[in-house]
């Protein structure tokens, strides 16, 4: 069976959904963050696939920017997690209930 664009898009969608399940069900802030990164990478895969099948490189430039922004975002997010851990001594989301009313 030949590999078509639909195959790549389906793989990207499955990866995105796995990340979504991780964000919803996990309780550890670090793993939630990793799942978030995985959703970003799934979008990257679809962008590269579209770029290849359309014969244009603009999608790859977008992936380049997404990787850069994701790296900066990871740095800031992990700094927030460290600050939160100093404040509360936990990274489990069920312990962070100060916004509940």
């Amino acid at each position: 069976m030949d590999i078509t664009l639909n195959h790549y898009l389906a793989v990207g969608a499955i990866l995105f959904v796995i990340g979504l399940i991780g964000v919803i069900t996990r309780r550890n802030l670090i793993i939630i963050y990793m799942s978030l990164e995985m959703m970003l990478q799934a979008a990257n895969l679809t962008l590269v696939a579209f770029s290849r099948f359309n014969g244009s490189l603009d999608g790859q430039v977008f992936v380049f920017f997404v990787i850069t922004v994701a790296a900066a975002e990871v740095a800031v997010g992990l700094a927030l997690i460290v600050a939160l851990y100093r404040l509360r001594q936990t990274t489990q989301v069920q312990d962070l209930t100060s916004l509940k009313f």
Partner: protein
Amino acid sequence: MNALFFWLFSIAMIVCALTVVLGRSPVTSAICFAFTIFFMSGLFVMLNAFFLAAVQILVTAGAVMVLFLFIIMLLDLNAAEKIPRQKVWMGCALLLALGFLYVVALTLNATPEGAVTIEQAPLHVPSPRVVAMRTGTHPGATPGFLEDIFDDTHRIGFLLYTNRETTTYIAPFEVTSLLILVAAIGVIVICKQDEPRRPASREEIIREAPPKSTKPETVSTR
């Protein structure tokens, strides 16, 4: 051959991604995430995106994952999750996931353009301006320019740094550098601890913690 590698990389990637989400300990998740990125780079290579495959391994699997592992080590988070996962949330997430996949499947079925195979897809469709420059009809162009540049690193470089193509990405590239600078400063500000005030001079040190031999003297003079 193409199909074999596609299935190999994608199935391995999905298995690793599932291990990230379902694994108990954060270290297992981080290592499996790095492997997910490696297999995704394999898919990038099959899509002729060699530069992005290298960048993906260097930045995401290298820098980002090492940062994650470093934070896990620093905060000593490797305890497995003790609280049992709630079945209700798992059911909701599965329902949402299946609904999303159903919509994606409907969309992919409804678009016949998606059925193009990788052999049929053109590797590079030059923009009209580049065509004009190649054929010499564009003013100031040398014929044969950009004739043999077909590897993706060169072409991404042309897109990022020149205005020879129709679209250029110089301004977003510069804004990205500003973003990284702001992120670096933000990380320092967030993680800076408010340290207790340090004694400034030698006299202050002696006043706050007097040596033992002089302690009776100071008490008696008071």
